[in-house]
Each structure stands twice: as structure tokens, then as C-alpha cells.
């Protein structure tokens, strides 16, 4: 059975955004208002779904190929890679990363996206990959475009890729967005600016010339750090 004296760290509220951030208007009616109740982690929190026996589709990790209908998707081909680890610096192997994003024009396939920019018949914008035994992952995609949204007058989201990660158990669950270096829209984006200053740079990928594939794709590096566990050694009983 699970050892009861492992406990995972809580969210580090110095780097995570708060529930309520009025500059991001949708939080106003959706943010819980009452204090969270501290829960002792039990078997259910210390475990989570495992996807390591799931067979990924052949092109799940290549968004430039996984929904080709009649040609290549348009836009700037990129390769994104990095490592998933916990706060203790331990790599997290065999963990699922789910990916979704807009196309190069800033248009999502999603039916409720009304932005007047073209869909790309050869680009869905969804993918997934698993970390390897050393916690590393890599996928190919098209650099997503910026797009306008209704939060305030002339509001534009910076280029970003959405991610969902599971990690070792449900305390590790993370949904986040990766941004691109040097994007001038970051300083105007309330979703990015809701993050406390200490955490903001952690969501900006780094241009990576070593990962760049000559004559093919620009490389970006983005590491994920999930919650660690208390570093209290204990004896096997």
C-alpha cells in the first residue's frame, strides 16, 4: 500500500496565479471566494491515472502531420522540447503531455472561436506526447499566431501553446500555457500578468539553436516543474 508519510508540496502560491484576478474578467464570477480547506493527502490524492500503456497515435507528437488532408499546414514549423521534473529536480518519466493551440493565423479549430482568420484544413492544433525514461519530451508543431479576445478593448493573446500534464498523482495535475521569448504582447496580457512576477519567466520558452533542425524547424526549450514531495527520508518497514 501507499506509504502514508509521503506528502506532496502544496501549490506554491508565490508563483501560481490567484483565483481572482479582475483584470481577467472571466475570473470575477468564477473564482471561489471562500478559503480553501486544507486536506490531508490520502491514497486518492497520492495516486492518479497512468497512461504509460496507452499507444500514442503515430503522429500524435507531430501536429504538422497529424491532420493533413491535402498538403502541409501553413506557418513556421517549430520543434518544442524539454524535461518534466518535480521541485526536487527528479525527472518524471512516462507522463502524458496533452497539447492544443491556435493555427499560424491565430485561429482555433474550436467551434466557438469566432475570430475572423482562416482555418487551415491541414492543421487541427491538437497533439500529445509522453516523457521518456529521463523525463524528456519533444513534439513538432506550427508556431501559433496571436489572436484578439473580448476581455477588453483591443485585447490580444500572445502566441502560446496550451499544455495539460498529469505527473505522478493528482496533486501534480497542471494545466498551463507556454509563451515565446520577446513577445511584445506579454506585457499587455492579463492572463500572463496574473502570474506573480516571480513566476512569469517560467512560462516563457527559450529559443534553442541546438534543438533547431537545419533547413527544417526552429527549436524552443520549455521545462515543466511539478510539485515535489517533502524531502523527508523514511525507512522501509
Amino acid at each position: 500500500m501507499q506509504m502514508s508519510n509521503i506528502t506532496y508540496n502544496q501549490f506554491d502560491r508565490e508563483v501560481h496565479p490567484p483565483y481572482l484576478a479582475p483584470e481577467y474578467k472571466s475570473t470575477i464570477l468564477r473564482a471561489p471566494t471562500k478559503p480553501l480547506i486544507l486536506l490531508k493527502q490520502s491514497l486518492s490524492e497520492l495516486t492518479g491515472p497512468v497512461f504509460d500503456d496507452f499507444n500514442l497515435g503515430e503522429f500524435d507528437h507531430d501536429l504538422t502531420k497529424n491532420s493533413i488532408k491535402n498538403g502541409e499546414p501553413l506557418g513556421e514549423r517549430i520543434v518544442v522540447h524539454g524535461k518534466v521534473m518535480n521541485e526536487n529536480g527528479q525527472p518524471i518519466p512516462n507522463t502524458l503531455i496533452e497539447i492544443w493551440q491556435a493555427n499560424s493565423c491565430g485561429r482555433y479549430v474550436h467551434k466557438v472561436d469566432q475570430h475572423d482568420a482562416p482555418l487551415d484544413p491541414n492543421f487541427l492544433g491538437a497533439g500529445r506526447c509522453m516523457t521518456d525514461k529521463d523525463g524528456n519530451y519533444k513534439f513538432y508543431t506550427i508556431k501559433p499566431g496571436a489572436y484578439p479576445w473580448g476581455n477588453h478593448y483591443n485585447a490580444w493573446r500572445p502566441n502560446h501553446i496550451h499544455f495539460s500534464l498529469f505527473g505522478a498523482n493528482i496533486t501534480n495535475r497542471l494545466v498551463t500555457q507556454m509563451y515565446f521569448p520577446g513577445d511584445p504582447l506579454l506585457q499587455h496580457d492579463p492572463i500572463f500578468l496574473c502570474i506573480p512576477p516571480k513566476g512569469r519567466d517560467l512560462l516563457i520558452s527559450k529559443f534553442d539553436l541546438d534543438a533547431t533542425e537545419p533547413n527544417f524547424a526552429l527549436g524552443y526549450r520549455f521545462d515543466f516543474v511539478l510539485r515535489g514531495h517533502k524531502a523527508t527520508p523514511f525507512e522501509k518497514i
Partner: protein
Amino acid sequence: MENILYKDTSSSPLGATLQTPSQTVGPYFAYGLTPKQYLYDFKQLVGNQMVSPIEHEEAITIVGKVFDGNGDVIPDAMIEIWQNDGENQLFGRFGTGTDVQNRFIFSTIKPKSVDGLAPYLSVIVFMRGQMIHSYTRIYFSDEAQLNATDEVLNAVPAERKNTLIAKKKGLNIYEFNINMQGENETVFFEI
């Protein structure tokens, strides 16, 4: 399950580092996370049938809505349910954008009581307008005896306890609504 000996790894070569901040799931998660449910052409890993109700006659249905601070139904939330009672490990995921009433609906089996505690499901709530997801739990109204002595439920202010208890609505059907705000704001946990 094997015992694993954890040790302090703060001196590991990678070194200790800060958690990656959360960001909202946004309004457009459906084709990436719940593609089959929303009829996108992409294989889906998990859905709302945590067990098949055809194969498990003891299967239960969990159904509910998510409400915002105005009491309006939220049509773009995504709910995940995880349960592990030591015997069954089950996971499900469902968005509130496809049902005509914007409900979430799951088929699962009722977990067992572990160590004399009341049985429950772990719930993770995501939506546009939430920068970081919320954790809650679903307990069951027909477990009144175990609920009354449960240490987690008893740590919750008495007047809010009912927000965690799904109401039995018929044979094997439980209703669990999630209120993000207001008088009946659901209890959310720090885990």
C-alpha cells in the same frame, strides 16, 4: 504496490527549482482534451464512462451542473473525476459543452470505504476564468452514517458540508452541482 524508498534529492544535478505556474484551460480545450465528446477528428484518451454501464450492473451515474456567481450554468467547464479505493482506480473527464442542459455526466462504480472513512470521488474542476484548477470531492447522500463520522467532512464548516454530498436521485443516480460562488459555494480543498 512496492514500497519505494524516497530520499532527499535536493542535491540532485538538476537542483531544486520553482513550480511551473498554472494557466487557465481557456475556452478552446475541447478538441485537444475531449475531442470525441465534442466530435472532433482526434482520438480521445478518456471520456465519461469510467466503467461501462452495460458491463457493470452496479454502475452509478453522477450528473450535475457548474454554476457561476450569478447562478448561471457554465457551459465551458471541464470536470475530471479520479477514484482509488485501493481496489479500483478509475479516471474520467467530461466537458459541460455538449449536453443540452450543459450538465456533466459520468458512469462509474461507487468506491468502497477505506479505513472507515466515507467513500468519495476526487474531482478536479477546470474552466475559462480559472487561472488554476480547483479540487473538490463527491460524497454520497446514502452513506449518512459514514459521512457523519468522516474526518474530512467534519473538518468542513457544518453549514457547508452539504455542498460536498451528492444527492441520490433515483436508482444509482446521484446529482452533484458545483457552485463556484454564492451562498452555496462548493467547498474546494487545498491538497
